[in-house]
């Protein structure tokens, strides 16, 4: 079954959920292509900033990527192993954003 949209599970933890209406888990739907290219993690980050982020974008996004101190897991794997923002999203992917700036 093919569809024009990708269904993705997105989770925020470590205090990041406070920026997203204090809600940890979202299911979002993105087009398979963005700007004539397969939709990737950078597109998702910018989409989250424009559509779900409620306050203080500087604590989440910086120069089209996440702010330093945020660990991103793609299907339980460090996004640095998957190409970071260039990772092409697949239907059913689970993306977790974890803030490491908890304090002590």
């Amino acid at each position, binding site marked *: 079954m093919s569809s024009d949209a990708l269904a993705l599970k997105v989770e925020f933890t470590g205090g990041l959920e406070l920026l997203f209406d204090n809600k940890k888990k979202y299911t979002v739907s993105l087009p398979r292509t963005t700007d004539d290219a397969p939709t990737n993690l950078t597109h998702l980050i910018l989409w989250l900033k424009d559509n779900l982020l409620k306050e203080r974008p500087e604590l989440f996004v910086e120069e089209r990527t996440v702010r330093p101190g945020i660990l991103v897991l793609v299907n*339980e794997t460090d996004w640095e192993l998957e190409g970071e923002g260039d990772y092409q999203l697949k239907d059913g992917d689970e993306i977790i954003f*974890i803030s490491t700036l908890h304090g*002590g």
Partner: protein
Amino acid sequence: MSCEKPEDVMPRKPRHDRGKTCHKCKTQPGQLIVRHFVYCKDCFFAHVHSKFRRQMPAREAYCQPEQEPSLSVAFSGGLGASVLLDLVARTYRREGARKPVWSPITAYYVETCAAYDGVPDAVEHVKEVVNGYRGIELVVLRLEDAFDTQTPLLALSLADERLPLSSSSSATPTDALRAHLAALPTPTARLQAISNLTYALVLRAAPSHAPILFGTHLTALAVSLISGVAHGAGYNLTPPARIVRPLCEISAKECAAYAHWRALRPLRSRGPPGMDSVLGITRDFIVRLDRDFPSTVSAVARTCAKVVPKRDSSSSAGAPLTCALCERPAQHGVLEWKTRTAIRSFSSDSEQDKTEGTAVAEELCYACHTMLTSRARVRGPSDVEQVLPVPSWTSSTIRARMRESVKDFILDDED
């Protein structure tokens, strides 16, 4: 082709050196990159446990054979502390273990919500977390416990850098805590004060012969060392022997991954992010450094570990001084030191006032004196009136040192 933006034309260097397979087991697909090395989940847990155990002290180094081998854990509820408590429990309280290496194990939690507006009390959450581990006791302290108003608290006037004594009008410990924090001149000083009070409360509550574990991970340690030097606390870069930091080789990223995969529930940071403070700015700098140059942060910690302060060895230095406020080792003569290192001027009127009354500046370390007297802006009229209630232990120490300094002039009752 322009060279103005080399990132546009140069392929980015990958963050890992060798493939996507775990570099330990060489069979499983990698799931986390730690300083250029790829780990699968199982090997990552083994790697963290190994680093933790390597930093744990030998029981014999702290306990005489007749003493019970107590272990204290300073538990803030944050990321590092949650990982630390989990590692302690899995290592020393696992099912089927033989005679425990450490017993009792006590977690000390200091509730700091009274220091902030609108921050909820987290004691119930902490109880739930700690009680989830078998055989770990919890002691709950409160930041306001530092101000026991049953005996009158002393206060310091911050208008004069010699810090003359004044009286405190705070009726309750919470009032005194809030007055203490409100009197501090900068956001940096307020964060520093909360940290100092928490540290002193834990050290006073824990048994003196027991090591106290702090969940300071590598990233937080680098932040603490750099910001500590900026505060003027370079004399205390080396912690006392009681303080052990078993996560000092484990980064914030590793802690976050560990907490996520172990389903731990760290407390969110208390209070504001503190970006208007030295601590906040340093944290921002170190976290960026950690992302772009992952090995540099450990180099910061390793370099600072080699720094040993020159302790006062001359006979003129007198007995070793402990700061009356933070209770860390201090150098004598903070005012004289500052006279040599800073450009200052006094008006002639105020100079005369400074020769009268009892001043406390010489009982403090450089960092605490700077914390109380630094100014983020030009002093206004309201600052001149600031009176800072001091913790109970500071009041006791000042009274004892005042008695000591006049003991030769006190007449016995029989005379």
